[in-house]
């Protein structure tokens, strides 16, 4: 018993500086330690999102990626390094995250997300983080999120620009309301710092939701232009005829 108590206070030392944030405290940290977060993609966005969620002490991180790191990923995918080339990204992510915080349970999923695999991949997650690079898979996740009322933080990047929104249907529009089509996937330009900023903003949105502090980007699309450092917030609305979340 004494041993258990000692372990708890030792662990709280790791999180002491965030626990003194107004509204966080023991209860907020307990919620974080008990939360399960699903991260779709262990690439440019998934790297900082997973790193900062792990460092904050999220109890279980399910991270999903069917790819392997390539040299041309390493200008931004800070979960991986040269030695991980050829290893599955979700497995490589697990190693990096457990090194950063051995108290986090990391469940790697190495399958591709599709209509058949989404349910077993997301499993019992409380919240999902979209760190994907294509809209086809995003729409699969969105449909699953809407059907099960799971909150879903969306982000996307291009060059020095990025966007983020917090989706929690029926309170907010779903991803299909805002982006009805599947934008064709291409090899787009990207500097590491862009997903660094946007992926970390996703992590902040997740932590705020779990702890219950601040305001999430609900019904708002944050658009960021890193070239001029211009941030814009656009009001987004539900499409009443949306094939996913409409009646």
């Amino acid at each position, binding site marked *: 018993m004494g041993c258990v108590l000692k372990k708890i206070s*030792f662990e709280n*030392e*790791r*999180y*002491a*500086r*965030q626990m*003194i*944030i*107004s509204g*966080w405290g023991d209860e907020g940290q307990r919620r974080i330690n008990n939360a399960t977060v699903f991260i779709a993609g262990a690439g440019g966005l998934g790297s*900082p999102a997973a*790193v*900062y969620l792990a*460092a904050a*002490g999220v109890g279980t991180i399910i991270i999903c990626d069917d790819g392997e790191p390539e*040299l*041309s*990923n*390493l*200008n*931004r995918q*800070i979960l991986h*390094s*040269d*030695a991980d080339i050829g290893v599955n990204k979700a497995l490589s992510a697990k190693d990096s995250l457990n*090194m*950063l*915080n*051995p108290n986090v349970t990391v469940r790697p999923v190495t399958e591709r997300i599709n209509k058949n695999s989404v349910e077993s991949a997301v499993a019992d997650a409380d919240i999902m983080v979209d760190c994907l690079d294509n809209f086809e898979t995003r729409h699969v996740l969105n449909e699953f999120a809407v059907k099960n009322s799971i909150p879903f933080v969306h982000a996307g990047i291009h*060059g*020095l620009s990025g966007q*983020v929104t917090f989706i929690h249907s029926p309170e907010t529009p779903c991803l299909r309301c805002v982006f009805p089509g599947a934008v064709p996937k291409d*090899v*787009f*330009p*990207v*500097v*590491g*710092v*862009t997903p*660094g*900023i946007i992926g*970390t*903003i996703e*992590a*902040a*949105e997740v*932590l*705020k939701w779990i702890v219950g*502090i*601040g*305001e*999430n980007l609900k019904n708002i699309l*944050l658009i960021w232009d*890193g*070239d*001029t*450092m211009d*941030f814009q917030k656009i009001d987004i609305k539900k499409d009443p005829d949306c094939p996913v979340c409409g009646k």
Partner: protein
Amino acid sequence: MKNLTHSEKERYHRQMLMEGWGENVQQKLKNSKVFIAGAGGLGSPVSIYTAVAGVGNIRICDFGEPELSNLNRQILHDDKRIGINKAVSAKETLERLNPDIKVEALTDKITEENAGQVIGDVDLIIDCLDNFDTRHYINEYAVKKSIPMIHAGIYGMRGQLTMIKTPETPCLWCINPGSPPPVVFPVVGATAGVMGSIQALEAVKYLSGVGTNLLGSLLIWDGSIMEFMTIPQHKDQGCPVCSRINDIDNG
């Protein structure tokens, strides 16, 4: 100028697709030298993202050692590095993330007397410190040597950031005169992550010459409501740091 190797061209391929970037710009990054003051919450994302972007020479300075209570945000370090100097630990992490760059670990505590000697001859200074006393020492050197400096500070879920390039912009003393007493402030990793990544972006934009820097305005971020604001900043004509140094230069 050192040329890019075949493997570097591959590593940086995706950013070299950026408009106006290309091989010359990447080569410029490879040949540039930055000084990162602090290997903590801000210094972690700053050094990581400048390293993976291919900034060729990183001098990172910290006299402290990682403690358990640092690890919720200082992602350069982990449990195994507790007790090792932070700059030395940083060098190990950065060289693993990008073996093609040079990292110099400086374990000095920056003081008024040694600031110039520690910082040395660099293209850019990045302020990742946690106290204003030391910030003012590096600000003075930056003003004196006309080296641009990217300042950031964080508290809880908020942060501020600006790029200083005197005499074009106000210096740090004009914006934040004096030093509030150092305190143990609340902070979550994601705050340091957002502000540090923006610092790294400002650094990469400045060194590459692509994009516009935050010169003469202060970015204020409130992560709790995800609000960003920029506030124009003005030079203090009686600033004891930048007006005095400019007078000396002119006279």
